C-alpha cells in the first residue's frame, strides 16, 4: 500500500544564542492508512520536532527546516503556502498534544473549542457544530455530554481533558492522527482507558496514526511499526514484534534491558546505559551513541552510520553486529 504520509530526509535546526541545535538529522518514515507508527526516544531526541514539522508548527525563527520533504498524498507540505497548509492541518492531519491543560484554551468552553474546528473546516453552522460536538464527546466516553459541552477545561479531570482533545482531533474525520505523548501526564488506569479508546477509533475509522512516546510498554501494545530515535537520528526501525524480539541497535537493546517488568522479577541489578542523553548542540563527528555504547569499534568514532536494511523491513544505523560484537 502507498504511504499516506511520508517524511523524507527531514533536517531541522534551531538557531540559538549558544549555537545551532541539530534537532532532527535526516529522519525518514512513513505511515499507511490504518497503520500505527510508534516513535520512541528520550527527551530531546527530536521525536516531537519531526512531527511538528509535518504540521508546520515549528516556530521559524528560531527553527529552520533545512532540508527534506513531507509528502501527504504525494504533495509536499513543506512547499505549500500557509493558507493551503491550514486547510490540511486539523482537517486531514490532526494532532493530540501531551499536556491537555496547556493546549486547551482556559477561557473557552470545551464545546466551543471542539465546534470551532468544524465551523472553520467543514463550514457547519453553530447549531449543527454543537450537535456534532456533543456526539463526539459521547464517542470519546464523556458522561452527560450535553451538560459537559458548556464546561470549561478546569472543570474536567486530566483524563477527560485528554478525551476532549481527542474529540477535537477527530472532529473533521482526519486521515492521519498524530499523538505526541498523549498519555504521559496521565495515571496508568486512565492511560489504559485512552489507549483502548484510540485503538477502537483507529480500527473503526481506518486512520493512520503516529504515536510518540518514551514508554516502550505503550508502543508494544499499540504500534504496528516502531522508529527509535536518538540525538535527532533514526537508529532503528522495524515492525513491533521484530523490534522487541530481536532489537539490533545497541541503544534499543540497552533500553529494553534497562526496563523492569511488572509481570516478572529478577534479583539482578537493572542493566544501565552509562552517561546521559546527548547534547544536540555539540554532536560528535562519529556515531552520537558512542559515549554510551557497549559495542564501540574504531570506525564508530570516525563515521556516523546511515540507516541500512539488515532484513526485510528492519533497518538500523550501526556498524556493529550486536550478536557477534564485530563490525558487520
Amino acid at each position, binding site marked *: 500500500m502507498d504511504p499516506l504520509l511520508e517524511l523524507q530526509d527531514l533536517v531541522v535546526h534551531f538557531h540559538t544564542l549558544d549555537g545551532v541545535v541539530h534537532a532532527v538529522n535526516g529522519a525518514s518514515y512513513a505511515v499507511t492508512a490504518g497503520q500505527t507508527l510508534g516513535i520512541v526516544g*528520550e*527527551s530531546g531526541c527530536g521525536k516531537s520536532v519531526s512531527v511538528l514539522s509535518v504540521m508546520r508548527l515549528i516556530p521559524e525563527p528560531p527553527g529552520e527546516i533545512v532540508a527534506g520533504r513531507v509528502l501527504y498524498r504525494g504533495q509536499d507540505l513543506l512547499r505549500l503556502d500557509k493558507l493551503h497548509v491550514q486547510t490540511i492541518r486539523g482537517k486531514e492531519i490532526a494532532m493530540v498534544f501531551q499536556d491537555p491543560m496547556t493546549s486547551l484554551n482556559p477561557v473557552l468552553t470545551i464545546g466551543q473549542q471542539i465546534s470551532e474546528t468544524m465551523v472553520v473546516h467543514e463550514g457547519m453552522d453553530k447549531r449543527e457544530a454543537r450537535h456534532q460536538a456533543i456526539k463526539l464527546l459521547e464517542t470519546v466516553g464523556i*458522561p452527560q455530554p450535553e451538560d459537559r459541552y458548556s464546561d470549561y477545561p478546569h472543570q474536567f*479531570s486530566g*483524563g*477527560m481533558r485528554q478525551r476532549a482533545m481527542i474529540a477535537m482531533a477527530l472532529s473533521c474525520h482526519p486521515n492521519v492522527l498524530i499523538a505526541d505523548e498523549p498519555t504521559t501526564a496521565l*495515571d*496508568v*488506569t*486512565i*492511560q*489504559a*482507558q485512552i*489507549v*483502548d479508546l484510540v485503538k477502537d477509533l483507529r480500527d473503526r475509522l481506518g486512520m493512520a496514526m503516529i504515536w510518540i512516546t*518514551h*514508554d*516502550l*510498554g*505503550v*508502543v*508494544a*501494545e499499540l504500534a504496528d511499526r516502531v522508529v527509535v530515535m536518538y540525538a535527532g537520528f533514526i537508529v532503528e526501525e522495524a515492525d*513491533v*514484534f521484530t523490534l*522487541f524480539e530481536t532489537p539490533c541497535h545497541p541503544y534499543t537493546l*540497552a*533500553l*529494553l534491558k*534497562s*526496563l*523492569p*517488568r*511488572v*509481570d516478572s*522479577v529478577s534479583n539482578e*541489578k*537493572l*542493566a*544501565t*546505559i*552509562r552517561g*546521559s*542523553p546527548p547534547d544536540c548542540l555539540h554532536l560528535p563527528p562519529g556515531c552520537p551513541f558512542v559515549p*554510551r555504547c557497549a559495542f564501540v569499534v574504531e570506525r564508530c568514532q570516525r563515521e556516523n552510520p546511515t540507516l541500512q536494511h539488515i532484513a526485510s523491513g528492519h533497518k538500523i544505523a550501526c556498524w556493529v553486529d550486536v550478536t557477534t560484537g564485530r563490525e558487520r
Partner: protein
Amino acid sequence: MSDRQVLVSVQGLRKYFPIYRGIVFQTQVGAVKAVDDITFDVYRGETLGLVGESGCGKTTTGRTILQLYRPTTGRVIFDGIDLTTQKGESLRKMRRRMQMIFQDPFASLNSRWTISRIVGEPMRIHRLYSRAEQIERVEELLELVQLDRMHVNRYPHEFSGGQRQRIGVARALASNPDFIVCDEPISALDISIQAQVVNLLDDLQERFGLTFLFIAHDLSMVRHICDRVAVMYLGVIVELADRGELYDHPQHPYTQALLSAVPIPDPLKTRARQRVILAGDPPSPVNPPGGCRFHPRCPIAKDCCAIEIPAWHEISPGHWIACHAV
C-alpha cells in the same frame, strides 16, 4: 516475619487539609481528606513501596510520617518514640535520622547554593562535624553517589537531571539517617537514567542498612526495587503484601485493575492479556464516597460496600487488605 524489627510504625494516621471560605471571617467549610486512617509498619532494612494514582495521598503520607505535615490524628512511632508528640529541639534531633529525597531534582536544590553548601546543610544543622571534617565528608558523599569530588563548588544548573538527583541523594545521606522517604525519585528522569539512580539507591541501602519508603506510580519499577508494597486509593491503603504475593496474587479489585493497566514491553504478551479497565476517574478526596471508597468504580461491589467501611484485615501472613468481598 517475627524476626524483623519494626523501625517505623504508622497507626491510624489521618491528615485533613481544611478548606476555608471568606476573607475577614474565615469559616471552615470542609476538608481535603488526603490521608484517612492508615496503619502499617516499616521494617528495618526493607524497602516498602507506596503506590497509587496521583492525588491518592502517597506524598502526604510520606510527609506526614516525617512530621513535615503534622497529622490530624494518629501516631507515628519511630524506633520506639512517638514523633507526633515531639516538638522543637527533640523533634529536630529525630530528624537527623529520617530524610527525604524529592521528586523534582530541578526544584529541590537551591540554585544559588553551591553543591558543597547544599550537601553540607544537614551536617551544619545537626552540628555533626567540624568545618574541615565537613568538607571532607561532602567530597566523600559525592564520590559515594558517583559524582566527581571536584564538583563541590559548582552550582545545580551545571548538572543534568540524573546528576542532580544524585546530589539530592547525597544530601539525604549527609546526616547518616536510618530512614529515607523517596518521593518519586526517578519519575522526572529519562528512561536511560532511571536505572542508574535505582541501582545507586539499591547499593546504598545494602551498604548502610537503610530503610526506604519508596513512593512511586511506576509499578514496574516498584516491583523491582521494593520488598513489600502498599497500594493506596483516595487516602486509604487498600492492600499491603510482599512484592511477589501482591504482583502475582493481587486480591483487591483496585490492585488487580491497577496492575492490569500497566503496559508490558512485550507486544505478544501485552496484546494477549485480559485487562480490567476501570470506568471513570477517581472521586474527589473532599467528599469521598461513603463505605468503601472504591465502590463506585468497583467491578465486584456488593450492597454493603456503599455503607460499611471495610475492615483492614490480614488474609494470609503478611497480606493485608481492606475489602468486603475478600
